[in-house]
């Protein structure tokens, strides 16, 4: 194998050893997260929004937390939101969870090919999205349905897209959940990982070049921070001082690969910021108030031309990667229960109850309202059809929008496709 004379290790020098990362717990193991440093809420300093990143470098290794074990908000990062805003946030998160539940079931019932839940990560999109202006441009990854829902995108449109039916604004071209809504300043989701990160930086550069006031924000999983695109994004963001927020959702798992395969055994993802001279914050991603406050801090910083921010939201992917994934094959089922940062919806709910602004009855009523809202939207969308039942987009749309105008070769191919539809092959017509 080795082409070294005398073979590998032929000398008396110490042998090298290759390290292959291994998660702490595999299926059947007792999960114990006591090694994780979870500092008390309210202890982390809140630097000035225009401060030099070097002056608050320790925040890239800390964990910014607001909601304490007593369900109260603590410390300088408390965004001091009024109860109505908190209830809206709770509602949005509950609606996302209800939506996820029903869409997951819909996939299992054969109504579509694919779905991705964001269970346990709702705060990282809902609370972050709410901290931005509604016309700030977001470049999401595939688990940020919470932003669309917070921005009031109709659930029916989302379901039409998931079903790829004739009501789908994206003409049935995209894998389910790869939404796009320009009207909601929500960029088209790619499916190729981390490609959206330099795009967000470019959008922010354009906004700055034009003297606009809108900023950009992007979301990327901790696993795909290993992509070159992410590092290009960090470099361009810092070089041009782009008004952008780079959100890294560290949910511990990239399908079956734990965060160690993206470098988490050595340092935090927020610490990536320091080498680039970006502001870096590491935040409890299951603490909706800390998520909101950190996103608001970074937005204010960007808006003041004070620079871009990289935020790591430390959270946990409570369920599988997608409907095509079964996490019981690679991680301990106990992890979710033992996760020391709790559940983001419950934590916000308990906070509102502790404030005297909420109770279990109202929560139950709201949960039912969310379920009913989703059910109504689902029934409405199903009138437009479900995947694979013939009520798809007009056939010719397959060839449209490849270019602004249809070139001759696509015209010929479209004619061929139309002709094929009329031909009976082997006695029958293919199922659409």
């Amino acid at each position, binding site marked *: 194998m080795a082409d070294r004379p005398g073979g590998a290790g032929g000398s008396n020098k110490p042998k090298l050893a290759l390290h292959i990362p291994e998660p702490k717990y595999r299926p059947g193991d007792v999960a114990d997260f006591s090694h994780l440093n979870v500092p008390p809420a309210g202890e982390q300093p809140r630097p000035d929004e225009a401060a030099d990143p070097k002056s608050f470098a320790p925040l890239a290794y800390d964990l910014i937390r607001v909601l304490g074990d007593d369900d109260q908000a603590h410390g300088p990062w408390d965004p001091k939101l009024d109860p109505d805003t908190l209830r809206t946030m709770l509602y949005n998160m509950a609606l996302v969870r209800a939506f996820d539940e029903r869409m997951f079931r819909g996939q299992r019932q054969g109504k579509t090919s694919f779905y991705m839940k964001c269970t346990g990560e709702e705060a990282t999109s809902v609370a972050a999205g709410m901290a931005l202006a509604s016309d700030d441009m977001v470049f999401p990854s595939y688990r940020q349905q919470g932003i669309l829902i917070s921005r009031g995108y109709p659930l029916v449109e989302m379901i039409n897209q998931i079903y790829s039916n004739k009501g789908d604004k*994206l003409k049935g071209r995209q894998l389910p959940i*790869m939404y*796009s809504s*320009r009207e909601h300043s929500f960029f088209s989701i790619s499916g190729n990982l981390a490609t959206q990160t*330099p795009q967000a*930086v*470019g*959008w922010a550069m354009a906004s700055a070049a*034009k003297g606009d006031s809108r900023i950009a924000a992007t979301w990327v999983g901790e696993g795909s921070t290993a992509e070159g695109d992410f590092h290009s994004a960090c470099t361009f963001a810092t070089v041009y001082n782009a008004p952008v927020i780079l959100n890294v959702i560290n949910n511990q798992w990239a399908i079956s690969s734990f965060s160690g395969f993206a470098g988490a055994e050595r340092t935090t993802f927020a610490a990536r910021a320091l080498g680039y001279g970006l502001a870096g914050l590491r935040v409890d991603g299951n603490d909706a108030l800390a998520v909101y406050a950190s996103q608001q801090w970074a937005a204010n910083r960007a808006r003041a031309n004070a620079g871009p921010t990289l935020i790591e939201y430390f959270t946990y992917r409570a369920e599988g990667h997608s409907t095509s994934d079964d996490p019981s094959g690679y991680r301990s089922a106990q992890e979710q229960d033992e996760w020391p940062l709790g559940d983001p919806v419950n934590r916000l709910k308990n906070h509102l109850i502790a404030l005297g602004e909420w109770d279990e009855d109202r929560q139950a009523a709201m949960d039912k309202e969310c379920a009913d809202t989703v059910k109504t939207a689902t029934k409405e969308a199903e009138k437009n059809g479900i995947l694979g039942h013939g009520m798809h987009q007009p056939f010719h749309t397959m060839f449209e929008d490849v270019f602004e105008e249809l070139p001759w*070769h696509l015209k010929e191919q479209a004619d061929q496709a139309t002709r094929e539809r009329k031909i009976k092959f082997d006695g029958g017509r293919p199922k659409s």
Partner: protein
Amino acid sequence: MSKSATEGQTVADVGSERRLNMIDAINDALDIMLERDPDVIVLGEDVGYFGGVFRATAGLQEKHGKTRVFDTPISECGIIGVAVGMGAYGLRPVPEIQFADYIYPGLDQLISEAARLRYRSATEYIAPLTVRSPFGGGIFGGQTHSQSPESIFTHVSGLKTVIPSTPYDAKGLLISCIEDNDPVIFFEPKRIYNGPFSGFYDKPVEPWKRFDASIVPEGHYKIPLGKARTVSEGDQLTILAYGTMVHVTEAVCKAKGIDANILDLRTLVPLDIEAIEASVERTGRCLIVHEATRTSGFGAELSALVTERCFYHLEAPVERVTGFDTPYPHSLEWAYFPGPVRIGEAIDKILKD
């Protein structure tokens, strides 16, 4: 040589006798578009203060300002990636990739993002980029400064690929590309930046100013995408070429006394199939010439199209003259280059059949 290379132009005004080389013509196009459209933005490695390693952007930053024309980090992924984001914002970015050989780190952003954005968002977002990049060999650039990767891009649905062969065309085509709402790869044959190349590498380069194709009018004009240029009207055979090879082919025909119908394709996607069909139906013989490697090169597509569509007019098999399927060698550059000998032999073969 191409003394009549302004054929096919779309403007009547060639009155002024201003003669430019290809670099200056490209610079002129960028200057005009920066002036006319406040959304045009030029970015790339060394394109700002310095004006580009080939000088294509010289003076543009000084004239139009640092936020319109600027240097970038050495990251083709980042350059194309931010350009896609700028396009989504509403700008019309013109990124330069310093050498086509360096474009590969940006492929995901080009192939999976720029080329697909209109389709996947059902026109909500578009990527109206024009990616300029010098390509091709003949300058002793070795394997990393000589490649012709056009067929990688012609294979991608949603990308247009444009290659000029004269200063006049370079300006008019580049303006069309920048105004086009689809992403375009604009490959500039760097061997002919300063003058057309006969393929006889030991002869001195004749500067562009000796050729009428270097008459470049002031102001805005466009060469439509998807239209080939008739270089010569002969009827012995059809030769399909683009970029540097247009001139090499023309010189070989002249030297051999061959009366060919040479078509400079100018745009590979969308292709001017009508011009190709009309020519091959008339001549019955077709030679395809490109500098890129042979296997799965654009010549394979051209050969297939001609065979599928003109088979009953053909009097000889379609021939391809290409670079060899090796990396572009440094010291053996002229043995690699599809020069006069390879082209001449192919012409003889086609005409003999």
